[in-house]
């Protein structure tokens, strides 16, 4: 039995539904941990609301947040996966149907004509990042990126002579500037690279794809992640800007080798409401959601 387009679409719809309605376990556990350690009463009250909301959303099968985000597909596509060229159109159709079924808020707006397409698809929406890998399976991580945490995204082309100071300055200034706006506690992604777009793409991957608690394989970068996370939390912005101990749940760094003349630093944040789900589908149509989510 070869995989049918219908099966692929149904898999993607369930992936979208899971991401939108059920918080990943790693994020939920980190929020619970934050609730335990937080002693600022207002921050704690709002953390309580965050936990209750997440449990309710999972139980009722409703979107965690009303901003159901911009749909993004990170795909690892087997070189022998049968529906390689069809994947894009099928994913678009899955977004359209999920918008009606879950339901999701229509978020695709023409920047010039101002019209909302009404179904979460449009020019370059959804957004795809596809990597070809050996094999015949398709592995997909779906992320719905909220607008509130996207707005403070920061890119700075630093001065190479200033070295890692470029990273420290850009990160701390971006988090202070963002303040309560990206719905802290946030997950911070930092990208360092030669090219501007590369830095942002890496920052996005760092924020969106790596689970809470995951450290970079390079021990020096891993230490920098820990130091920067500690520094971000020392800023005392806290849950929704009410002060307190927890501004970020984690901070991840990704880097590319840079050009001698450039030092691109990008900072991406995701709100506490991380909408992320990962699954795979085989060339025979067997599929499974492999990320762990709360059940409510």
């Amino acid at each position, binding site marked *: 039995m070869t995989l049918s387009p219908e099966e692929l679409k149904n898999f993607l719809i369930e992936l979208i539904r899971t991401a939108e309605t059920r918080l990943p376990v790693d994020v939920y556990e980190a929020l619970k941990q934050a609730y335990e350690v937080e002693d600022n009463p207002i921050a704690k009250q709002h953390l309580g609301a965050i936990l209750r909301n997440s449990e309710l959303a999972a139980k009722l099968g409703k979107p965690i947040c*009303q901003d159901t985000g911009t749909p993004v597909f990170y795909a690892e596509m087997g070189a022998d996966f049968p529906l390689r060229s069809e994947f894009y159109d099928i994913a678009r159709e899955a977004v359209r149907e999920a918008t009606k079924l879950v339901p999701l808020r229509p978020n695709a707006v023409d920047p010039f004509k101002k019209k909302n397409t009404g179904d979460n698809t449009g020019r370059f929406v959804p957004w795809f990042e596809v990597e070809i890998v050996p094999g015949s399976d398709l592995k997909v991580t779906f992320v719905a990126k909220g607008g509130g945490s996207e707005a403070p995204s920061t890119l700075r082309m630093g001065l190479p002579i200033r070295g890692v*100071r470029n990273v420290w300055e850009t990160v701390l200034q971006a988090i*202070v500037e963002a303040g309560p706006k990206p719905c802290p506690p946030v997950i911070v992604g930092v990208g360092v690279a030669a090219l501007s777009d590369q830095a942002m793409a890496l920052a996005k991957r760092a924020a969106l794809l790596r689970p809470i608690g995951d450290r970079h394989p390079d021990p020096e970068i891993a230490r920098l992640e820990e130091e920067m996370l500690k*520094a971000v939390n020392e*800023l005392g912005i806290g849950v929704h800007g009410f002060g307190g101990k927890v501004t970020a749940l984690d901070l991840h760094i990704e880097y590319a080798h840079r050009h001698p003349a450039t030092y691109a630093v990008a900072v991406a944040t995701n709100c506490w409401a991380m909408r992320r789900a990962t699954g795979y589908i085989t060339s025979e149509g067997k599929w499974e959601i492999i990320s762990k989510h709360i059940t409510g």
Partner: protein
Amino acid sequence: MTNVYHLRTPLSEKDVRKLRVGDTVYLSGLIFTARDAAHRKILDLINHGEKLPFDPRGLAVYHVGPVVRRKNGEWEVIAAGPTTSARLEPVEHEFIAKTGVRMIIGKGGMGAKTAEACKKYGAVYAVFTGGAAVLAAQAIKRVVDVYWLDELGIPEAVWLFEVEEFGPLTVTIDATGKNLYDEILERAKRKAQEILSRLS
């Protein structure tokens, strides 16, 4: 966190003048939604001397673009957490002055001009937990009406909701003009400088 209040709209000037930053409010009664386009629409109508289809005086304006669904002819609110209020900072002072709203509900805080209008006209800005969309939807008991739905679309339209014990809302700008976030963000800025100066 000092006091907890259970209030009902329409709010009087006295109701909101007693609130202080850090207070918690649970709100019942009518509230209406307005994002960027709705603020412009409402102000345009008022500035052209036209009548609004509802009376905003004493109500709370909620910065939200909800997820809704029509079921058996009735609107069902699925998810309705707050959106970032800072986008409305350029117009909110005029909005407070001309609509007579007593409470602005959103997330992420607002600036000096809004704080000034809160002080002058008797209003407060309060924060609902950002992202807690299902919790918010549960407190919305009924969609009373919706205005300019075709023109503005679902997220941007003005929805008139009947709510019960809508909260927790944390007052972050009170009617004395005090802004809770100012202090926290000022401290964060100083701390960032301190950390950076330790580096080299």
